[in-house]
Structure formats: C-alpha cells, structure tokens
C-alpha cells in the first residue's frame, strides 16, 4: 500500500476522532474540526463553481472568445449572452456596499421570479395530477404481476375496511345522537357502527373477489381522504369530516412511524459507515 494513502487516511481518522470527542462534551478538538470544515468546504465550492461553471461559461467566452471548444465572435450574439448574465451576477454583490445595495435587487428579481415560474406547472403535474391519477386507479396492488399475494396484506386490508366503515358511521351518528342521551344511545350508535362496518367489510370483500376494486385501492383513497381532511381548515372537525380526520391522523401516525424507523436506520447507517472507515484504517497496518 502506498505511503501517501496511509497519510491521507490517517488525517481523516484524526479528524473523525476530533468530531467524536463531542460525544463526551463540547471541546476545542471538535471546534477545530468544525471550523476547519466550514473553511475547507467554502474553498472547495468556490473552486468547483469556478472551474465547472464560471470559467467555461462566463470568463472564457467573454475574454478568450471560446465556448465548448468553439470559437465565438467578439460582440456576437453568444458573446453578449455570456457577458450580460455575468454582469447581472456581479450586481448581486452590490449588497455588500450599503449605498448601492438596492442594485442587487434587479438580478435577484429575475432569479427569484424565474425559478418561481419554472416550478409551478411541473409541481402541479408531479404532486397533484399524477398523484390523482394513481389514486383513482381502482385495482392498485402492492404486489406486482406474477408475485404472490402475501397473507398479511390480504387480511389486514379487509379488516381495516371494517374498522374504517365503523369509525365513519360512529362519527356520523355521534354528533347528532350522543351527548346527554345516556347509555342506550351510546349502545345504539356503537351497534349501528358495527353493522355498517360489517356491511362495508362484506361489500369490500365481494368487490375485491370480483376484481372490480382492490382493497388496497380503497384503503389508499380513504387514507388520502383522511389526511386531506385533517389538513382542511375551512370547516370545524365534527361529524363526517371529524371522522375522516380521525382516520387521517391514524394513517399519518403510521406514516410517521415508518419515517421514524427509516430515519433511525439512516443515522445508524452513517455511524456504521464511519466505523467501517476506522476499522479499514486499522486494517491498513496489518496488510
């Protein structure tokens, strides 16, 4: 193994340990690494921006009349097209001179407005239209063609169908029929919820057996409806909307649970990566 690789890696190891010293408590070694990386990354970004963008797209076309290996004419269209945005870009730095700081707003206006305008339609397509299209497909399934339906999903989907119909009915009736009317009304409402829930369950099972609508599709739509209901602020959360919002919060919490698990996984992966790095470094000496 090359000596230079060992030196470089050892620098990395020392800096890694500096950062880990923060676990004991905040200390100068950690602060050293923290400030070093702030400076180094700023320098790195500056160099990368210069060589990848500013040099080939602004400096060379304007001063050396060359762009992407092609010669361009001084004062020609391409020359102006490199010069104007370059000058506009420089105007951004007017903010560091209080007297003319306002000049920096011109390029900023183009920049902020341009990016705002670019995003609108693709976001509508990606986050609304295509999601609507996916949500309205009646035979969504978590198994692809040729895969085996796993028993867990089949059972859970239909069972949840029951729960959802029951909860909805409960909230629908609870507003009007509960309150001060006592135990009898309560039992009545619960019984009605159970009956409707079972009815829903039967209908769902039949539909999915006949391959008209899959239970997954229905759950996805109900979950989406519930989530949107939870984030609907123009009406009070009572009655049907309240029921939907309750269902929504259940879906949201399970979704956040998944995020939680994955986030924990992510953090641990980062630690594993660093530990792997340290162990490989130790391994360098034995080879």
């Amino acid at each position, binding site marked *: 193994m090359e000596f230079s690789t060992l030196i470089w890696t050892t620098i990395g190891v020392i800096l890694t340990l500096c950062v880990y010293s923060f676990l004991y408590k905040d200390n100068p070694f950690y602060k050293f690494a923290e400030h070093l990386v702030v400076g180094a990354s700023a320098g790195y*970004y500056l160099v990368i921006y210069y060589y*990848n963008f500013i040099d080939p797209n602004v400096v060379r076309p304007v001063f050396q009349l060359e762009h992407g290996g092609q010669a361009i004419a001084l004062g020609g269209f391409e020359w102006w097209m490199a010069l104007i945005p370059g000058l506009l870009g420089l105007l951004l730095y007017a903010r560091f001179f209080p007297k003319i700081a306002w000049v920096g707003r011109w390029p900023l206006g183009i920049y902020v407005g341009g990016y705002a305008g670019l995003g609108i339609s693709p976001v509508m397509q990606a986050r609304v239209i295509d999601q609507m299209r996916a949500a309205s497909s009646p035979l969504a399934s978590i198994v692809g063609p040729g895969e085996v339906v796993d028993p867990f999903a089949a059972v859970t989907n239909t069972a949840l169908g029951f729960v959802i119909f029951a909860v909805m009915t409960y909230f629908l009736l609870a507003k009007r029929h509960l309150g001060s009317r006592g135990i009898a009304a309560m039992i009545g409402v619960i019984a009605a919820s159970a009956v409707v829930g079972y009815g829903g369950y039967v209908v769902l099972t039949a539909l999915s057996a006949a391959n008209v609508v899959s239970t997954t599709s229905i759950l996805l739509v109900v979950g989406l409806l519930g989530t949107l209901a939870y984030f609907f602020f123009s009406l009070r959360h009572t009655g049907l909307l309240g029921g939907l919002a309750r269902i929504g919060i259940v879906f949201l919490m399970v979704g956040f649970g998944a995020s939680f698990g994955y*986030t924990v996984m*992510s953090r641990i992966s*980062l630690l594993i990566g660093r530990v792997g790095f340290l162990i490989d470094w130790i391994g360098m000496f034995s080879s």
Partner: protein
Amino acid sequence: MASSMTRFFERFLKIDRRWIFLAIAIAVVIPFFAPLGLPVDVTPPVQRLYDAVDELEAGGAPLLLSIDYTPATSPELEPMSTAILRHVFEKGVRVIVMTLHPAGYGMAESAILRAAEEAGAEYGEDLVYLGFQPGTSAVILGLGVNITNVFPEDAYGTPLSEIPLMEGIRNYDDIPLLISLAGWSASEAWVYFAHQPYGQRVGGGVTAVMATDLYPYLDSGQLVGLLGGMRGAAEYEVLIGRPGSGARGMDSQSVIHLIIILLIVLGNVAYFATRRQRKLAGEGT
C-alpha cells in the same frame, strides 16, 4: 416493594447517557469482527431499479447517473453508486456521470475512478464525467433541450463533441434511463423537471430519511425504482452478486435496531412505572 422498584426505575432513567453511547459504539463494532452473515432479502422497489438498469443494452444508449450526494450522507449513498457502476461496467452498458451539487463533484469523481479502475472501463468510450453545473432545476430542464447547452465540456475541459461516447447523444430522447443518488431533494427535482416535461424514466437512490416520503412517486410510476439507504444498497449488491459495504453494514444495523427497540421498551416501562408512583404521591405528571 413497589417503591424500591420505582426507585430503581427512577435511577435507571437518570443514567448518564454516555453509557448508552458506549453501548452503541461497542454494538456497532463487534459485528465487524464477528460477522453474523445474515441474509438480505430483495424488496420490489430495488428489484425494479435493478431490472431497469439490467434492460439497458451493452454499448447502446447510455445510463445517465447523477451522483448528487454530499459527504454528510455518503456512507448511505456511496455503496449505491459503487454497486450501480459495477453493474453497468460488468454488463458493458455505457454511463454518463454528472452531479447537481458542488460537493457531489468529488464524491462522483472518486466513485468513478474506483469503479473504472476495477472494471478496466475506458474513459470516453465506456464512461464520461460531465462534472457539476449549478442551478438544479435549470440544469435538469436544460438537459432536456440539449446536453451541450448545459455541459459544453466534460469535467476535465474536453468539449463534448470530441468525446466518442457523446456522439449522437443530444438530450433525454437518447437516454433510456436516469438515476439520481441524493441525500437532498434532487430526486424530486428530477421527477419534476425531467420526468414531467420530457417523460424521462427516472430512478432514485436516497437516504433512508427521505425514502418513505417518495413512495407515492413509486406507486404512480414517476420513479421506476428506489434504493432506500444502506439497506437498499445492500439489496442491490445481492442482486449483482457482489456483497460490498452495504451488505457488510447489515449485521451491525440488525444489532443496533434491536438495541434501540429494547431501549424504547425499557424507557417506556420505566417511565410508566415511575409515573404511576408519582401520581399516587400526588405530584401529577
């Protein structure tokens, strides 16, 4: 008796957290020296991405791989770039590499150098590295019009017109598949600005933190496949039959997940046990 139990739990909850840190550190190190060799199953989002790459023709239209991750998330994403590059070089699929993040520049370069050296891939024929361009959405949209508008030259200053691989490659029409590896919103930007306007097929590799949020894009087909975190990389390594640093980490991951679940359970048991006691004592919660 109950009170001694409670007292134990109270003291237990108050232990210096540096003991927990130490336990985690030990738990993560041990599997490196005593591997459990647990098997990794492949899940559909990974399988779909693998299939999409596997369908590419050797020497045909290239894969565009955007290595958009930064050092902070590299332990999760670097195994992905390594696995994907090994896969394409083994199959003889040509690949164009680029990045949307300045810090991705160095990450991409080191990934390419390693993989190309290992597979004996030739620069300019089997792969080309376009480097970095700023402006995320403007870059992605620009590539749909004409790649040379955005990248007049490759990362090392060679005009694209002089690179054999780039011959006949004008825009997304000539690129059957695009994969972005990122620990930030780059994957979504590729969906917005390459898939939506140009119908480009986009696959993603992201940190586990972001993976669950992208599932709706998988279901709707806006993403052809998704690698989520180190586990996603491990699955891809299984598919190409070359276990790497993703698979190596799965043992430690298993052990620590168990420990964390255990800690949550213990913490809750201790909390509820002491809370009842506190309630009885009239202190409230």
